[in-house]
């Protein structure tokens, strides 16, 4: 750790402020909490003249009980529509609109554990961007017209998702793994649920959860930490404090027995399957095991590609050229969420679904048996480290990663800490985690009608 110094946030706000540092980076990352309990994380980055901004609310699927499902997704869609309206009609946001058109972009997402917006701008427009985002999340009362417009967009999105076989198989896999808990449901809801939420329910939901106590703002920018902190306080300092949301489902209490959820598809003659196992919660060394195992499976020299028996078990008889363009088996990346998992996607002849299941499961089981060769582990570690470093080199990607960790209650120091965990990982560590987590497996499968 280097460059430890007084946190400006602590001095400025008179509040307890944790100061941590991204070892290996030139500038320290600073974290503080405003009076309204909103968390602010800033990191100065002078490598590029852009600011990456993340605004997140720790409003997870667990909050959508008692008929509120999918309030989060509907509000996010409303926010997106409202943001577009502001950009189109408010002249003081015109420079920001021009930047978005020039390539900056802004993305609204609903995740299993939180909702977020991620944006990029030039430092000259950082103040404007923060004011814009604060206004987007603070609009009250909600406009019935915009909410209805958002409803229609979201229903269209659900229809598109329904047509994606991969997405449907993945949702079935989550249901098999998690049971009938809110995090097992599709985040975008279904048309009936979207239509059923009233404007009043949506407004009450927003007032309850979209508050300082559930929010975090992260900025990675060339501006000084002090300047970034001031800008956040000006924009978000007046948010109501509110109460924290229900805790995330960090202990999903996976079913003790393996499980399968089956659905049907009418658009493909192949069976679509997602098979996976649970992983330890993010933040610990066990989670890193999942990331490394993903890399053992993935890539041209990964186990899934090299195992010709596995390909044969799918009984697809695909021509070589098609295989080169779209291989029918792939490892799904391990992502930061409160219910992490290691999963594999596969397409198979429906008559071969059991042989495919066994062939995939052999790979999962082999991790419990300590089958990983040293050179295989070295390759996977190298891939993991490169993936971490390359994925986060853009300011907006880094801001989003820091924000995601903040949303999950994890330490904000990023890559090097994890890099050390990756470097220290042994095959014994892998066997230990595999023994604890990989005895049960879960499957979502779509079979042709």
């Amino acid at each position, binding site marked *: 750790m280097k460059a430890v110094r007084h946190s400006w946030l602590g001095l400025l706000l008179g509040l307890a402020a944790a100061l941590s540092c991204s070892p*290996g980076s*030139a500038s320290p990352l600073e974290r503080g909490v405003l009076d309204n309990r909103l968390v602010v994380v800033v990191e100065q980055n002078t*490598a*590029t*003249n852009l600011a990456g901004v993340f605004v997140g609310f720790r409003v997870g699927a667990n909050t959508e009980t008692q008929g509120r499902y999918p309030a989060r997704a509907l509000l996010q869609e409303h926010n997106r529509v409202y943001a577009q309206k502001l950009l189109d009609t408010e002249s003081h946001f015109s420079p920001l609109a021009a930047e978005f058109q020039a390539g900056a972009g802004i993305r609204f997402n609903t995740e299993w554990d939180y909702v977020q917006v991620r944006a*990029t701008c030039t430092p000259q427009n950082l103040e404007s961007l923060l004011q814009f985002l604060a206004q987007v999340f603070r609009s009250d009362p909600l406009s019935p017209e915009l909410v209805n417009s958002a409803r229609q967009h979201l229903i269209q999105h659900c229809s598109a998702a329904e047509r994606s076989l991969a997405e449907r198989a993945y949702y079935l896999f989550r249901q098999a793994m998690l049971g009938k808990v809110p995090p097992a449901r599709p985040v975008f809801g279904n048309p009936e649920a979207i239509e059923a939420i009233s404007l009043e329910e949506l407004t009450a939901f927003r007032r309850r959860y979209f508050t300082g106590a559930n929010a975090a703002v992260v900025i990675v920018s060339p501006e000084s930490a002090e300047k970034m902190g001031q800008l956040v306080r000006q924009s978000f300092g007046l948010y109501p404090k509110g109460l924290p949301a229900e805790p995330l489902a960090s202990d999903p209490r996976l079913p003790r027995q393996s499980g399968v959820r089956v659905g049907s598809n009418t658009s493909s003659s192949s069976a679509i399957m997602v098979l996976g196992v649970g992983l330890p919660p993010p933040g610990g060394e066990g989670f890193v095991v999942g990331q490394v195992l993903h890399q053992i499976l993935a890539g041209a020299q990964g186990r899934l590609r090299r195992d010709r028996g596995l390909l044969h078990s799918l009984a697809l008889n695909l021509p070589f050229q098609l295989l080169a363009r779209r291989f029918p088996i792939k490892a799904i990346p391990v992502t930061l969420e409160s219910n992490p998992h290691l999963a594999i996607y596969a397409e198979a002849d429906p008559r071969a679904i059991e042989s495919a299941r066994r062939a995939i499961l052999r790979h999962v089981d082999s991790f419990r048996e300590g089958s990983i060769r040293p050179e295989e582990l070295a390759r996977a570690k190298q891939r993991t480290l*490169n993936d971490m*470093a*390359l994925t986060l*080199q853009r300011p907006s990607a880094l801001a989003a990663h820091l924000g995601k960790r903040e949303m999950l209650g994890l330490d904000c120091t990023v890559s090097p800490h994890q890099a050390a965990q990756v470097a220290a990982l042994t095959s014994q560590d892998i066997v230990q985690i595999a023994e604890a987590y990989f005895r049960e497996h879960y499957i979502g499968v779509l079979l042709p009608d």
Partner: protein
Amino acid sequence: MVVVAALLIGGQAAAVPILDPAHIQEATLDNGLRVIVKEEPYWPVVAVGVVIKAGSGYETEEDAGVAHMVEHLLFEDSGDETALGPWIEDMGGYVNASTRRDFTQVTVAVASKFLPDIMPRLAQGVFAAQFTEEQVARQRQIIAREMADQYATAERVLEKLIWQLAYTVHPYKHPVPGTRETVAGLTSQEAHAFYQNFYVPSNAALIAVGDVQTEKFIELAASGFGQYSRGTAVIREPPTEPPQTEIRTDAQVMGKHATIVQFAWHAPGIASKAEVCAMDLAYTILGEGPHGWLDKHLCQENQLAVACGVQFLTQREPGLFIITVLTDSDSELAARQVVLEDIEKLRAEPVPEQTLQQAKHRLYTEYAFTNEAYTDQVDTLAFYEAIDSYHFATEYIERVNQVTAADLQAVVNKYLGPDNYNLVIVRPEGDEISVQEAWRR
């Protein structure tokens, strides 16, 4: 002997200059390889690019497509462990190779701790590549398939037609991948000859951006790349394209729906830097999204087009300023008229100061986004180093800021004339007769 020269700090357009020259150092290895390093210790990634001054603009009629073929050969997955592309990809790194009219470039990026591993492999992959007759035959097939896919889209057909129409003698008229005929006729001897001539250190530059110390990088460069002999690329100066003094037209029937109209004027090359900057502002004013004049007049106010856009890529030699309009048969003539009226407006009077300033800010923003990641910054530095010098990349915003409304008007008058443009129209099937009618009118 390695010479390291620190650069002078240029003007600053913002709090943090884009591609800050204060962070950039350059050197030349004994074998003539230029080395350019931008230290950015902020994030543990390093991006490295090798740019070879060998693109389709260096080809002849007979070997058109050979530059692209050689790039394919360098990166094909031959199944053995020496193939650079698959090796970098399998270690989780980033790798990209591309062929342009003026150069061919390879960019890789990895976590900085792996830099020493990739440097010798990169050097070997670029300067000591071996390819067999079988590989050339395989790539002929692959490229033929790629071309078939590409020329199934109107966009690529237009690109091919407009460059062929605008250039009569200069090799810029060749499509970068060549034609079906020239690629089918390429031999391994031609590929070898092109590779041996152009892929030499004295005709290349090595660019790094990221978490690396300059001295350390130059040591790695000398160790990995220094072993290859200097070589001397024999470069034929391309024939000078005579000035265009008439309107040229071409048309093709393709697809079932839209009519696509494309105008192209000859435009300044990198030798005319002030004009290049003014031309960049012209394309921004005309074509940059919903605020651009063309979108406003064609799409929003008169609904004559579904979409429109402007392209101007700075090149080693004078390139093209291209306007594309997606319209329909009924609106085509009116849409063409609007395009010419907007150009005429730029010619007739200086743009208002506010318009100029907004365009400058949009260019600045676009440039900032173009250089967001370390790989992006390598690409920009390599691009300008290949066609002139990377210095232009560091001075670009300052030069744009110096352009006045009068400069802009003068450049538009010099290049975007009313009677020296090229026009290509791709019309939907069933409109064959209308094409003839359109020309007649």
